[in-house]
C-alpha cells in the first residue's frame, strides 16, 4: 500500500482523508461513521410460525426479573383479546393477530429488540443507556433524570416509564437478562422457557445465516425476509414470519438507517447555537439599542 502512494496522491486526498485511507487501506473514510454492532454480540431469532401463544415467556420473564404480580395468571388466554404493550410490570408481552386467509391466528412476542445502534441510547443526554459487547442494551437508573426522550426515540415503543415514584424516575424495559444470564453466557429466561423453540439464541451473525437457511429450506413456510436484519441499522432480536410483517403488528416503514442518522447533522450544530448565538445576537442587540441608550442618557443629563 505505502509504495504506491506518492506525495501528490497523498495531498490530493486531503491530508486527513489521505492519512485515513493509508491506515484503512481500501476502505472508504466515511465507513468509520456507522457502527454495525459488536461482531461477537448475541441475539435471538424469533420464529413466528412456531409460536402458539402459551405465554410461558411472559411468566419466565416476570420471575427472572422479579416483576410485580400481574392482574391475571399467565395461563389466562383472555388477555390476548387486547393488543398489549410492554409496561413497567411486563418487559415482554405476546399479542395475537388474526390474519386474513389463515385458518389459525399468529402470535407475536414483543420485547426490546436490542438495536445495534439504539435510538434510546443515542437520544439520552445523560448516557443512561449502554450497548454491551454481548448485545444487550442496558440502562442505569441512577443517572436517569426521567426526561423520557428514549420513549419518544424508540422506533418500537418499547421503554416504559414507572410513574409510581416522582423523585426516583425509572424507565423499565427488557435488558436481555444481562445481569443474571447473558453476561454469564446463558440464554435469557424467556428463551429457556419457550416450549416450541420459537426463540433461537445465538451469535447474531450466525442467526442471520440460520434464518436465511430456514427460509431457503422451507420456501412455502416463510416470507423471504428477516425483520431486524437491516431495519434501523439492525437489531439483535430478529423475526421470521409466514405472512407479511405488516399483518402481525410490525412497522415495515422504518427503513434501514439507524435513527441517529436522521438527526446527526442537526445535533452537531446544537453546541454552536448554544455558545455562539447568545454572544452574537446579544452583540447585535447592544449595537442596535446603543444609540437610544445614549439618547436617553443625554436627556436624563439635561433635566
Amino acid at each position, binding site marked *: 500500500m505505502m509504495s504506491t502512494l506518492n506525495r501528490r496522491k497523498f495531498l490530493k486526498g486531503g491530508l486527513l482523508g489521505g492519512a485515513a485511507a493509508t491506515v484503512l487501506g481500501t476502505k472508504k473514510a466515511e465507513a468509520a461513521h456507522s457502527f454495525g454492532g459488536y461482531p461477537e454480540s448475541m441475539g435471538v431469532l424469533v420464529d413466528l410460525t*412456531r409460536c*402458539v401463544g*402459551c405465554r410461558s415467556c411472559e*411468566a*419466565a420473564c*416476570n*420471575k427472572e426479573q422479579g*416483576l*410485580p*404480580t*400481574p*392482574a*391475571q*395468571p*399467565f*395461563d389466562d388466554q383472555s388477555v390476548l383479546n387486547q393488543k398489549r404493550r410492554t*409496561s*413497567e*410490570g*411486563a418487559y415482554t408481552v405476546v399479542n395475537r393477530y388474526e390474519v386474513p386467509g389463515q385458518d*389459525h391466528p399468529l402470535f407475536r412476542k414483543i420485547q426490546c429488540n436490542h438495536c445495534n445502534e439504539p435510538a434510546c441510547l443515542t437520544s439520552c443526554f445523560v448516557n443512561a443507556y449502554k450497548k454491551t459487547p454481548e448485545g444487550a442494551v442496558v440502562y442505569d437508573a441512577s443517572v436517569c433524570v426521567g426526561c423520557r426522550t428514549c420513549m419518544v426515540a424508540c422506533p418500537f415503543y418499547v421503554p*416504559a*416509564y*414507572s*410513574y*409510581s415514584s416522582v423523585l426516583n424516575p425509572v424507565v423499565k424495559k427488557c435488558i436481555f437478562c444481562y445481569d443474571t444470564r447473558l453476561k454469564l*453466557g*446463558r*440464554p435469557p429466561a424467556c*428463551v*429457556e422457557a*419457550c*416450549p*416450541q*423453540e420459537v426463540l*433461537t*439464541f*445465538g*451469535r447474531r451473525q*450466525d442467526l442471520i445465516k*440460520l434464518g436465511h*437457511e*430456514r427460509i431457503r*429450506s*422451507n420456501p412455502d413456510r416463510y416470507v423471504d425476509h428477516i425483520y431486524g436484519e437491516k431495519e434501523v441499522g439492525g437489531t439483535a432480536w430478529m423475526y421470521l414470519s409466514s405472512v407479511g410483517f405488516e399483518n402481525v403488528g410490525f412497522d415495515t416503514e422504518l427503513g434501514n438507517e439507524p435513527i441517529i442518522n436522521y438527526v446527526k447533522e442537526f445535533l452537531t450544530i446544537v453546541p454552536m447555537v448554544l455558545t455562539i448565538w447568545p454572544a452574537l445576537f446579544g452583540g447585535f442587540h447592544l449595537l442596535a439599542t446603543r444609540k437610544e441608550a445614549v439618547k436617553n442618557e443625554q436627556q436624563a443629563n439635561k433635566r
Partner: protein
Amino acid sequence: MKRKHYLIAGLAGLVVLAGAQAGVTAMDAADAPADIEINSLAQLYEPVQFDHAMHVDATSGSCVTCHHHTTGAPAEDPNCARCHRTAAESDVVGCKDCHSAKRFEADYLKGVAENKALYHTEKVGLKGAYHLRCMGCHREMGAPVGCQDCHSRTDAGDKMFRAGKYAPAPGTKPAGSH
C-alpha cells in the same frame, strides 16, 4: 504374508455382509414399549405418560412419521430425503438421545461452532423437539393442544404462572395503572 491379509479382509467382509443382512428388517413398532414416561424435563409440569402403542396405531405403524430416519425406514420429508434416502437403523431412537436439553448453553453453542464437520447446526433442543413434533401433529389432527392436556402443572409451575393457589387476588391492578 500378503495372501493372509486378503484372507482376513475377505472374512471381515463376510462378517459385515452378514450383519447387514440381519439389519435389513427395520426396527419394528413392537420393539418399543407400549407406554413411555417422558420425564427428563419435568419441572414446571408433571412427566408425560405417552401412550406409544396408541400412536403406533394412529400412524398405521409408520415409525418414520415421528422418528426421522433412525428406525431403518427412509425419510419422508423431501428436505431430509436428499441425504437420508437410504437410512441405516440407528442405535438410538429416543428424542433425548440426539436432542440436547441444554441447547442454548454456552458449551453447546461453542461445540456447534467449533465442529466444522457438523451439517445440522440448527438441531432443535429437547424441549423444542418434543413440542414441535407433538403439537404440530396434534394441531393438524385436531388432538388436544392445551399445555395441561398432556401434562398437568406442578406446584413450581403454578408458582411461575401465578395460577392455582398462587393466582393474583381478585382486583389486582397491573403495575403502573392508576
